[in-house]
């Protein structure tokens, strides 16, 4: 282990190496324990999944071999190694004087992002461990590495805010749910691509308006989202190996996922007004910007895109958002009147979502060559 002396863990090429270096550093942190106890505990609650591992093993990437190898080589080369550590660009954060509502929403942002990266890591690691197909296990190992690295980086920002994530969930009872592989492809592909679009949009906006950058973590968004981008590319290639995944009945599934992901993002972003105000971002503009980029990117593999410029699109999103707020209010009110209001709000939300689904989608001729580069 002494071979790693003097190396920062962010320079590690593999999870294992990172662990070895970190272990070596263990001794330095004994004093930290004292401060740890004063920190507020935040229990991470990732979910645990299983899937059809035989189906994953059966994937044959030979049809996209050239693109696949290039992507894997690029991920192995790990251009972002060493990027996720604090340097002189990490400005001091005045947590004490941060406006309380902004602080609450920003911490929600950090914890949710950390949990998401963490869950991604758990899922990818599980797929790596259970799979027997070398191409697939190699990919998932690399993605698990990136997600754990991102989670560690966010965790550090949380620590500065006096929050300590608690990984004690392992000793609690946890149930494993099940997803079909194809749903994992659609959901994670979209999640990675929309994640890229979200981060890069904020990064470019703050490049032009640095006075709104209220926390240094946003400066790291550019490299961060390039990781998301390559993960998305990998899932696009996986889907390309089997044309059935993007044709026939599955086109409806794709439409469902696109609608659900866009709508959920719209609703959640609108629930965090202080965060967006501090960034100087209008959530409606932001949503449209992110949807436009994601739709453009998803043309690489999905045979349809949503008609986000339809005159019905925006009003229906607003209706869904309002129904969601009413639903929450009714739940908190409780009692028989609350119950009636709840039923009404749920019905309005469901109707709006179905109407969103019914907006005709736009056809798209998927190109023969899948691969894209991050250009936004």
């Amino acid at each position: 282990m002494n071979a790693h002396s003097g190396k920062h863990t962010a320079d590690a090429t593999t999870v294992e190496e990172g662990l070895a270096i970190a272990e070596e550093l263990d001794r330095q942190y004994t004093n930290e324990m004292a401060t740890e106890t004063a920190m507020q505990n935040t229990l991470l609650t990732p979910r645990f999944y299983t899937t059809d591992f035989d189906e994953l093993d059966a994937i044959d990437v030979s049809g996209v071999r050239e693109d696949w190898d290039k992507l894997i080589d690029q991920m192995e080369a790990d251009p972002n190694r060493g990027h996720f550590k604090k340097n002189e660009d990490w400005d001091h954060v005045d947590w004490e004087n941060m406006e309380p509502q902004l602080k609450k929403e920003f911490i929600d942002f950090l914890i949710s992002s950390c949990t998401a990266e963490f869950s991604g890591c758990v899922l990818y690691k599980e797929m790596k461990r259970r799979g027997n197909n070398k191409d697939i296990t190699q990919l998932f190992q690399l993605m698990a590495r990136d997600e754990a690295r991102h989670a560690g980086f966010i965790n550090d920002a949380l620590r500065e805010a006096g929050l300590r994530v608690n990984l004690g969930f392992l000793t609690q009872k946890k149930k494993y749910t099940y997803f079909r592989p194809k749903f994992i492809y659609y959901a994670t592909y979209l999640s990675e691509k929309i994640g890229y679009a979200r981060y890069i949009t904020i990064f470019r906006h703050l490049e032009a308006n640095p006075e709104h950058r209220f926390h240094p973590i946003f400066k790291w968004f550019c490299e961060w989202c390039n990781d998301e981008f390559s993960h998305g590319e990998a899932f696009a290639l996986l889907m390309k190996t089997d044309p059935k995944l993007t044709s026939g009945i599955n086109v409806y599934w794709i439409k469902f996922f696109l609608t659900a992901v866009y709508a959920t993002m719209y609703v959640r972003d609108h629930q965090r007004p202080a965060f967006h105000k501090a960034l100087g971002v209008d959530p409606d503009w932001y949503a449209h910007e992110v949807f436009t980029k994601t739709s453009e990117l998803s043309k690489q593999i999905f045979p349809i895109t949503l008609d986000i410029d339809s005159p019905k699109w925006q009003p229906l999103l607003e209706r869904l958002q309002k129904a969601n707020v009413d639903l929450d209010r009714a739940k908190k009110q409780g009692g028989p009147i609350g119950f009636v209001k709840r039923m009404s709000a749920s019905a309005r939300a469901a109707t709006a979502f179905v109407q969103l689904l019914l907006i005709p989608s736009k056809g798209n001729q998927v190109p023969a060559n899948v691969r894209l580069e991050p250009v936004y």
Partner: protein
Amino acid sequence: MGWLTKDIERAPCTVEVSHCFESLHAHVRFNNGAVIYPGDEVKVHGPEIMAPFGEVVREDREATIVRASKLEQLWTRLTGDFEIMELCEFSFSEEVTL
């Protein structure tokens, strides 16, 4: 595995918790090759494993696997997909107000 009965197994496992800047992760590996199926529940025994910041803790523990009954497994396979949206990253929690 019965249609309605649950089997309970104990399995030795290695838990690895990394609370580092480089990598924040936590994994359980069963050392006897036990495989988890949909609907199964896993509990690692012993006190909570807390890795101080900058440390990786690896411990050998024992875990209980409560096997889902056949019916439960089928149910999880049929309905698990409905929770798929959890896989998507939206930056914020679902709490409407904070």
